[in-house]
């Protein structure tokens, strides 16, 4: 049956493993067990735990139920190696991994698992310990299995991409270093994953694949280089721009007038589509940061879940910003580990206890934007793009200027206290709310 997998136009792992089997007897028996599994439609592996000294995670132990038939794969463990930020390796590092894999395991490396780690497959009990020692002596570390934090993965970010809204690589390293104990030793109800994407293109697939996705965004206006835009239009034609940019904007906030791109930033949802198409002409704004979501996961207790919004915007530039994120994460972990059921991901936990209770538990003030779906109701408009507000903290003034108080009226309102005080006096003076309105209206009319 395995031979059938070699047919067809695509590369096959069976071909690769057959080649490897020439030098590794383990791999030949692995194929034997797999063939039998396919025929019998049964999984002959028993999964359990093998701990390296001082570690509670990092090794997935697999014992074969067919150890009499395939003695070489009786113990076929997987070591989870923490990957570098953005999967950036030197060839030297890759050679190191290959050498260690060749020496201690079946010589199969998987780059990268769904979690974002490097998987080294096929070592027995003894070799697993030796492999751990060898990896650590070269500066690698292992972790991320069982009820523990998973290795933190991120998009390539500032290393290659000018659109990134925060330093994904640096933050991923910082989070790995900060939470290394949680990576090594399971102390959660179940797994917890971070994934970091520098913008809404979400190259790390964070929204559906992690419990706490960070997605880069900005809160000022999108930057338009009209000259470059004109060049783009000239080169590709107006029709192309209308068909691929203007009409594909999800909120229809772009228009093309007389060869100029006009963007209504109030309505922009920062989806990145126009920037992707016209990357020479458009750029994210300057006031960049990240949106924090919560609760993405695959099927477990309940079906697949997308994450939903937790914090609309947080700056991610300074050490203080990163520390504030760590504080938020610790609040989430404290509450979740205390009250979650066994094997309950944070998304399911929120689903069970409600977002209201969860926000109360982590001490975060509710915000109308903490909804499961993005905004579709145009009657709800959010002016405030502020950092998360914890219990007891006063509301922060909106940092986005209200359009209705721009202009001469606003100057007068700021400089002339009569309007406000007049309205206040009108009430105790025997007037009513109507008078107050009149007084206010009068002041306005006088301008």
């Amino acid at each position: 049956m395995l031979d059938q997998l070699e047919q067809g136009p695509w590369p096959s792992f069976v071909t690769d493993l057959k080649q490897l089997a020439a030098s590794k007897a383990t791999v030949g028996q692995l194929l034997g067990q797999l063939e039998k599994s396919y025929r019998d439609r049964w999984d002959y592996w028993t999964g359990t735990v093998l701990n390296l000294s001082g570690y509670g995670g990092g090794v997935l132990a697999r014992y074969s139920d067919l150890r009499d038939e395939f003695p070489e794969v009786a113990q076929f463990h997987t070591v989870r190696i923490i990957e570098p930020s953005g999967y950036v390796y030197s060839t030297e590092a890759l050679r190191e991994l290959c050498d260690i894999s060749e020496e201690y395991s079946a010589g199969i490396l998987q780059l990268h698992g769904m979690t974002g780690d490097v998987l080294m497959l096929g070592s027995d009990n003894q070799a697993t310990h030796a492999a751990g020692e060898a990896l650590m002596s070269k500066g690698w570390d292992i972790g991320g299995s069982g009820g523990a934090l998973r290795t933190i993965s991120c998009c390539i970010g500032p290393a290659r991409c000018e659109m990134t809204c925060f330093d994904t690589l640096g933050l991923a390293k910082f989070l790995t270093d900060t939470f290394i104990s949680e990576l090594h030793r399971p102390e959660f109800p179940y797994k917890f994953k971070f994934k970091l994407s520098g913008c809404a293109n979400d190259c790390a697939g964070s929204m559906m694949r992690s419990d706490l996705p960070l997605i880069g965004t900005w809160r000022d206006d999108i930057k338009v280089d009209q000259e470059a835009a004109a060049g783009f239009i000239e080169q590709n034609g107006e029709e192309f721009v209308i068909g691929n940019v203007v009409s594909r904007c999800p909120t229809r906030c772009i228009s093309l007038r007389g060869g100029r791109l006009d963007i209504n930033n109030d309505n922009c949802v920062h989806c990145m589509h126009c920037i992707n198409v016209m990357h020479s002409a458009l750029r994210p704004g300057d006031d960049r940061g990240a949106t924090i979501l919560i609760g993405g996961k695959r099927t477990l207790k309940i079906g697949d879940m997308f994450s939903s919004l937790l914090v609309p915007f947080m700056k991610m530039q300074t050490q203080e910003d990163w520390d504030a994120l760590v504080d938020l994460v610790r609040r989430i972990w404290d509450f979740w580990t205390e009250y979650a059921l066994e094997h309950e991901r944070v998304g399911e936990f929120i689903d069970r206890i409600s977002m209201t209770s969860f926000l109360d538990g982590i001490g975060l003030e509710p915000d109308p934007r903490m909804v499961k779906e993005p905004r579709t109701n145009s009657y709800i408009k959010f002016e405030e793009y502020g950092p998360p507000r914890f219990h007891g903290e006063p509301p922060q003034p909106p940092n986005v200027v209200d359009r209705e108080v721009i202009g001469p009226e606003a100057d007068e309102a700021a400089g002339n206290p009569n309007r406000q005080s007049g309205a206040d006096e009108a009430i105790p003076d025997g007037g009513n709310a109507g008078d107050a309105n009149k007084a206010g209206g009068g002041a306005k009319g006088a301008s």
Partner: protein
Amino acid sequence: MSFDFEGKTYETDDDGYLVNLDDWNEGVAGYIAEQEGVEMTEAHWEVVNFLRNYYAEYNIAPAIKILIKEMKKMFGPEKGNSAYLYNLYPAGPALQACKIAGLPKPTGCV
């Protein structure tokens, strides 16, 4: 499976955990610890005694998060963290300390 200690035979499961809870005493705990390569100090006994008390009360070994939390309450934050517990019991506080405490093997992934 079983092992002999001071003239008595102790029945264990496949992984070496005592089958009968009542068989346990400090002597046999010391013997299991020796087999595990753990040198029992006062700090080690604190954990073992905590586990036994917890088991006596709830009839189940505590999850690791509860162990850490309760240790923190009783002995302070420097002892109530996973690094400290793994330092005492390198093969994992749940697996190794439960074995020494004569409790059944904990289920789950730790």
